């Protein structure tokens, strides 16, 4: 039997016509080429440049710096630790609050609670906006002279400090970012839930499981592929966060994130390869957990 399967495989591979092969290699080759040119080569160049001093202009000016840029970041740059903290808060907030809330919403809407269509639309609306647009909207609301300040009867001079108030601005930014993230997760999860066989739910209900038990023991495991996507999205969204904060604070680093520091040191007025080193640190932070997570997931599968 084994041999017949093998034979079949061989035959099916052989049966690819010249045309098919061309199409296939074009489909595989072109994206690979684009990735190579626009992603891998620049990424490798960034890694190399992070070990140099350079102002980004003449190639001949590049000077070897060893680990000096990294040393400078880890030893002197207080902003780096602040940014790391903010990224971490973002990650924790998304993992522990925003994502679970999105899942909960999806579950409730899937159960067709009263008015679920309305809820679905309301939570879905922010998802169609980019974070940059969301930044513009909420900046307009909260900034001195903005809409909400106006409602409270505050003018610019005595406006409630929100973006510049370090006791609350983190939470405000988290709330604004979640506004979109919750809807996004809800949407993903909802489409996953719809594909779960309803008979599973019925069976567990007949067996006397509570709602919570059904969700945890039956539905969650059945949704494994969606769960993986959601974990990865939550991780990536938290680490790559940039646009929302950039719109609110501009290129100043009043509420630093790793990406904003990369921008400030790399694309700003004082180009230095400290930006490259920061980008590499961010790359490692992004890739590490995701590779780890995917590996454990695929191990379980096989």
């Amino acid at each position: 039997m084994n041999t017949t399967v093998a034979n079949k495989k061989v035959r099916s591979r052989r049966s690819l016509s010249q045309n098919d092969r061309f199409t296939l290699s074009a489909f595989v080759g072109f994206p690979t080429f684009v990735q190579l040119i626009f992603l891998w080569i620049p990424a490798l160049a960034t890694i190399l440049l992070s070990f140099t001093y350079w102002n980004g202009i003449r190639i001949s000016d590049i000077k070897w710096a060893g680990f000096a840029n990294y040393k400078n970041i880890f030893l002197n740059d207080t902003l780096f630790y602040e940014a790391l903290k903010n990224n971490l808060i973002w990650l924790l907030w998304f993992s522990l609050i925003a994502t679970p809330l999105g899942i909960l919403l999806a579950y409730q809407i899937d159960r067709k609670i009263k008015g679920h269509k309305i809820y679905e639309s309301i939570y879905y609306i922010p998802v169609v906006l980019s974070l940059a647009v969301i930044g513009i909207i909420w900046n307009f609301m909260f900034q001195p002279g903005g809409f909400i300040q106006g409602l409270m009867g505050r003018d610019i001079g005595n406006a409630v400090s929100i973006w510049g108030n370090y006791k609350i601005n983190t939470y405000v930014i988290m709330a604004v970012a979640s506004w979109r993230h919750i809807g996004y997760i809800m949407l993903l999860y909802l489409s996953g839930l719809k594909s779960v066989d309803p008979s599973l739910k019925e069976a567990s209900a007949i067996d006397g499981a509570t709602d919570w038990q059904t969700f945890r023991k039956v539905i969650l495991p059945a949704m494994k592929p969606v769960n993986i996507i959601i974990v990865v999205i939550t991780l990536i969204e938290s680490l790559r966060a940039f646009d929302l904060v950039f719109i609110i604070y501009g290129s100043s680093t009043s509420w630093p994130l790793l990406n904003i520091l990369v921008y400030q040191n790399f694309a700003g007025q004082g180009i230095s390869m400290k930006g490259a080193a920061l980008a590499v640190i961010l790359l490692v932070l992004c890739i590490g957990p995701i590779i780890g997570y995917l590996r454990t997931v695929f191990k379980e599968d096989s």
Partner: protein
Amino acid sequence: MTTEKNGAGVSRRTVLKGAALGGAGLVGGGALLSSCGKEKVTGDVHWATRGGGETGDAIAKSVNDAYTAKSGNKVIAQQVNSDDFQNNFVQIMQGTPDDAFGWMAGWRTNARADAGLLADVSDQIKALGTSLSAAAIQGATNPADGKQYIIPTTYYPWGLHYRKSMVADIGMDPENIATWDDFIKMCTLTQKKGLVGFALGDKGGWEAMGTFDIINARLNGYQFHIELLNGKQSWTDPKVVEVFKYMELLIPFMNKNILDISWDGMRDLLLQKKCGAMLMGSWFANDFKAKSQADYDDLWIVPFPEINPEFGVDTIDAPLDGISVAANGANVEGGKDLAQFWGSKEGIDAAIAGGDTSIYISSDFDTSSYDAFNKQKLAVLGAAKNIMFFLDRDTRGDFAGPVVGVAIQNFLKNPKDLNKILENTQAQWDALPTL
């Protein structure tokens, strides 16, 4: 470790005072302008207007049309976002830049000229002849090679701005706010009325640099300030600590949302009569005029008050602006020709006809038609014998914004951390690569 990192010595920064006193020799100069004897420059020229909205476009159109009428060369102009243009300058200049554009003298010109991104305009400056004072040319000269890469055109003073009517309201003489005590008294009395005594916004991270500049110059003098920014003095020096102590004295008079507002927020506070005074460059005066002539007439500027009698009010932040030419432009010679036109009498006249209210450095510029506020701006400039270009033009770009701007913001957040902040600032200077 801490020397020569700026690639710019102290020597270049001499006085522009001569220019402020200009206007006297406004006749004559014009004859020297025409580039006679030279081959005629031809071809379309690309011009970038750096911000300014409709006013900026109107001024550029007026000047560029006059240039086209004179030379027969077409000018293709576009307006670019000022901040984006600054932040991406190096990339833009390495791509396909517009031939000529408004730019800023100081580190931002010299460092980019050293990198070969800007074209040498020394010949054009020579052609402009005596209309530019020696001091103005000195201010535009790159110390690395003694050439000019910017044709200086305008500048503006950073000073204490307030409304005359509001100062009169608290029983003080608006024409006579000269000493630190006057200033504090003014802030105190304004605050008693329930207003902001001294407005500050630093959301952008650069606005408060002006306050640092001027207090440092008043307390420790121009020489110390420039040496500090060039790494020849230490940020942990007690003299620097003292500067921040003076800033701390002002915090109680400030609005409570410093890090929420930018320079336009400060402007609005003064425009809406919600604050007593603020320290800023007078470029915003046009906005007062746009609101009403009465508001504009009420606006006043004086030099930041004296703190240390040894230095009086001998220094001012007066960033020098001008026209630069991209070395990689499609029509470099055309760009130079257009840049020269912008600096010439005909160019200045066209700019003013287009609605420009800037102070021109050129002695071809007639100051007799100045209104009271502009005359006062000239007086404020004239009172100083040392000109700073503002912190982010007086020191290197990878130090100004990413390090000093952040340090000042952190100080405003938590003044108690001062010593830690200054130690860190010095450590970050020490870690900079040599240029």
